[in-house]
C-alpha cells in the first residue's frame, strides 16, 4: 500500500447545477415556465398564489408543486382556487433541490402546463443555495418580517428575480418603511423588480399578474 494524494477542485453542487440546467432546457422546449417561489414561513405564499391563480387561470394552464415538510393543507387551498396541485413532501429537508423538483415535474406531466409554480419550503436560507431548474426565482417579503430582511439574508435577495412585498395593509403597525425596504433590496440586487401587494385585499395582484404574463411570454419566445 502506498499513500496517495488526490487533488480535486470539485464543487459539491455541480451535479445539482447540471441537473437544474437540463431541467431548464427541457421546460424551455416544452414552453412551460417554472417559477420558484421562496419566502419565510407565514409570509403569504399560498394566499398570494390563490389570488394569482384567480387572475390567470382563464388564460394559462397553471400547476402548483407544494413543498412542505408535512401536511397537504396548502395543496387543498390551491386546488380550490382552480389550479392543479401536487404535494412534494421533502421528508424534513429544509429546501428543494433540482432532483426533487425534477421528480415532481415528471409526476406532473410538465408539458401540459404553461405555468408551474414551485412553492419552496418556507425558509430564507437554504432554498437560495440550491438551483431548482426554475425559469425565474421569486421571493415574498412580508411586512411583519421587517424592512431589514435584505440585510440579513443577502443571498436570497441576490438569487431572486422579483421581490413581492406582501401584507402592505399592515405596514403602519409594524414600523415598516417601504422606501427603506426598496433601498435595502436595491443594495442587494440592483435593478430587481419590486412589487408591493396585499394578497388579502387583492391590491397589487394585477401588477404581479402582468409580471408573470411578461415573463411567460418571454420564456416562450
Amino acid at each position, binding site marked *: *500500500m502506498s499513500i*496517495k*494524494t488526490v487533488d480535486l477542485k*470539485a464543487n459539491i453542487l455541480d451535479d445539482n447545477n447540471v441537473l437544474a440546467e437540463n431541467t431548464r432546457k427541457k421546460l424551455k422546449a416544452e414552453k412551460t415556465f417554472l417559477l420558484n417561489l421562496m419566502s419565510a414561513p407565514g409570509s403569504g405564499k399560498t394566499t398570494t398564489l390563490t389570488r394569482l391563480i384567480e387572475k390567470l387561470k382563464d388564460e394559462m394552464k397553471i400547476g402548483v408543486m407544494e413543498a412542505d415538510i408535512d401536511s397537504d393543507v396548502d395543496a387543498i387551498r390551491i386546488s380550490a382556487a382552480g389550479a392543479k396541485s401536487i404535494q412534494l413532501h421533502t421528508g424534513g429537508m429544509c429546501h428543494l*433541490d433540482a432532483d426533487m423538483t425534477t421528480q415532481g415535474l415528471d409526476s406532473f406531466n410538465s408539458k401540459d402546463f404553461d405555468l408551474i409554480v414551485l412553492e419552496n419550503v418556507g425558509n430564507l436560507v437554504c432554498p437560495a443555495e440550491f438551483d431548482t431548474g426554475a425559469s425565474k426565482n421569486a421571493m415574498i417579503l412580508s411586512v411583519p418580517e421587517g424592512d431589514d430582511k435584505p440585510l440579513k439574508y*443577502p443571498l436570497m435577495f441576490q438569487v431572486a428575480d422579483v421581490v413581492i412585498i406582501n401584507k402592505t395593509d399592515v405596514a403602519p403597525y409594524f414600523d415598516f418603511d417601504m422606501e427603506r425596504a426598496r433601498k435595502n433590496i*436595491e*443594495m442587494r440586487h440592483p435593478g430587481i423588480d419590486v412589487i408591493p401587494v396585499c394578497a388579502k385585499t387583492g391590491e397589487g395582484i394585477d401588477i404581479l399578474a402582468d409580471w408573470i404574463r411578461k415573463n411567460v411570454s418571454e420564456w416562450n419566445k
Partner: protein
Amino acid sequence: MHEMSYVVRLAELALKAAEKEGLASVSAVYADIGKMTGIVPYYMQKYYKLAAKGTILENSVLVLTETEVLARCEGCGSEYTPSAAHDYLCPVCGRGNCRIIAGRGVTLSRLEGESKDEH
C-alpha cells in the same frame, strides 16, 4: 441548517473520486467552505461521521477551510469583501452592482489515502 445535504453530497463525491483513483481507504478529506454559504463547520463534522460510517471514508478526518467572500464591482472592477462597514457596497466607487466571485458553496479540494495496488 442545510449542512446535512452538503455532507451527503460531499461524501458521495469523495467516494466516487476515491474509487476512480483506486484508493483502498481514505485518511483525510479536504473541503473549502464559502463563508457566504452559512454552513456551520461544527455540524459538518458531526454529520460527516454519520455519512462516512460503513464506507472507506469511515476513519478519515474532514479538514474544513473557510474561504472569504469576494465580490467584483461591475462598475469599477475592484475586488472586495463585502462588509457591513460600508453597507456591503463597493468601498472604492460606492456602487452595489457586483458579482460574487468567491466564498459561495462547498468545494472538495483534496483526498489523502492509501492506494490499492502495490506497483
